[in-house]
């Protein structure tokens, strides 16, 4: 059975979870979020280190896009937004971007709601009210074309591109065939594959966007790393059997499968096309995950060889170990062992096992990262704070 269920939002999006999200506009009020979290553990709390102190237009654009994207996130049924009052991402500027989210949003500001303790008390009451209100909503059968699934790799090893990402790529192809949308980012891991990805682009415009994205990623890598840029493919990679940057990058991008690339979206931007989508986002796991979540990804596959346990607020993350050793060593963190490919399990059997798990997770089964409470929110900035 491939039937999937979810919560239909007023704007037509589909959630595979029905969370109340408690989120600050700025790090100064994280203590309020933590206080609410202790009193209302059923809510998903997402403290973060952003919201002020960066004046560049690109950073401000990203800040508002990520906060707005997480409020809009389909797995979120209601939001308690805690502001301060004097921050860049203040609620007055944020509200016009989120009023159409199609879900209850309650807003409090520490400077005008009686200070941190009183604001916490109001936030706790609002979160409890919201949990009761959305608790009566129920799941209905939904179609795959409402599903956006993100593919990520982090803490990779020499087997990540041989086992985990190959298996995830097979799931990606299955999803696209079903009418779902698959997205992946990590533009630094596309370096060396311009000739491959542009050939797979839907049209010339998408091909040009891919070329520009990879050129920028390469230039940034050279600017930031200088002479060490050649370490993008390191002696350790070569010892692991990777001979060229294209081969290393293919091992990463194969997680998106083999279908036509229909769109390139900016960091945190929601796709308007179906099928396979690329996001112009960074390689760092936490930042990449935030961009993919803010785009509306309801679920993420995350391959790891060294063993990264990280999750994300309101977005279930399925951890795919690339080798049996790390799967056994971190069994409480890993959902799938793709190391079985080395032990003789055929790829199509592993793929079907992963599809089965994915459907159970969509329908409500918790991933290890959800059970363990491994979620963290951090996102990309392009300039230092001042």
């Amino acid at each position, binding site marked *: 059975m491939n039937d999937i269920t979810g919560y239909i939002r007023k704007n037509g999006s589909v959630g595979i979870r029905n969370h109340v999200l408690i989120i600050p506009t700025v790090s100064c009020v994280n203590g309020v979020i933590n206080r609410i979290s202790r009193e209302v553990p059923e809510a998903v709390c997402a403290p973060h280190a952003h919201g002020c102190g960066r004046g560049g237009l690109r950073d401000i654009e990203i800040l508002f896009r990520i906060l707005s994207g997480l409020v809009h996130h389909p797995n979120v049924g209601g939001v308690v937004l805690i502001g301060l009052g004097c921050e860049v991402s203040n609620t007055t500027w944020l509200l016009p971007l989120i009023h159409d989210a199609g879900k209850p949003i309650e807003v409090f500001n520490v400077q005008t709601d009686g200070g941190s303790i009183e604001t916490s008390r109001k936030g706790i009451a609002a979160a409890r009210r919201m949990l009761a209100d959305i608790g009566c909503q129920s799941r209905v059968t939904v179609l795959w074309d409402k599903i956006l699934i993100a593919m990520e790799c982090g803490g990779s090893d020499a087997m990540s591109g041989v086992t985990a990402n*190959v298996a995830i790529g097979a799931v990606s192809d299955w999803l696209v065939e079903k009418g779902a949308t698959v997205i992946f980012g990590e533009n630094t891991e596309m370096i060396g594959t311009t000739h491959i990805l542009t050939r797979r682009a839907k049209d010339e415009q998408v091909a040009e966007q891919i070329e520009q994205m990879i050129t920028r990623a390469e230039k940034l890598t050279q600017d930031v790393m200088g002479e060490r840029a050649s370490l993008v493919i390191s002696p350790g990679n070569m010892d692991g059997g990777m001979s060229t940057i*294209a081969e290393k990058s293919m091992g990463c991008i194969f997680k998106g499968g083999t279908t036509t690339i229909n769109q390139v979206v900016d960091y945190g931007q929601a796709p308007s096309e179906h099928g396979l989508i690329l996001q112009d986002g960074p390689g760092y796991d936490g930042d990449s995950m935030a961009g993919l979540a803010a785009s509306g990804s309801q679920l993420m596959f995350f391959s790891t060889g060294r063993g990264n346990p990280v999750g994300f607020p309101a977005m279930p993350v399925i951890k795919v170990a690339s080798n049996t050793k790390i799967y056994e060593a971190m069994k409480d963190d890993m959902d799938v062992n793709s190391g079985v490919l080395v032990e003789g399990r055929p790829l199509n059997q592993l793929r079907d096992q992963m599809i089965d798990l994915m459907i159970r997770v969509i329908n409500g089964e918790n991933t290890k990262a959800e059970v363990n409470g491994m979620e963290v929110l951090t996102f990309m900035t392009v300039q230092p704070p001042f």
Partner: protein
Amino acid sequence: MKDSVLIIHPRDNVAVALLAMNAGDTVTANGIEPFKTLDEIPASHKIALRDISIGEEIIKYGETVAVSTQMIKKGQWVHTHNLESKRWKNE
């Protein structure tokens, strides 16, 4: 018998060794006739699935990941000593 290599994509002319192999070991994988290695192959490295001539593309993941700089025989180890990047010649 357990497969000793993984062929990621049907178009590929190289396979990935799933374990360290010595020269003369038998290569087995789903859908191919078993054959012998000609070199020692470290685990997770590439082995030629057929003869590859000079200048021919090395295909892995169904895509061109390098170009051969030598005649490579079926069963040989494929790595930086007998290929070059199409992209960055000096990497």
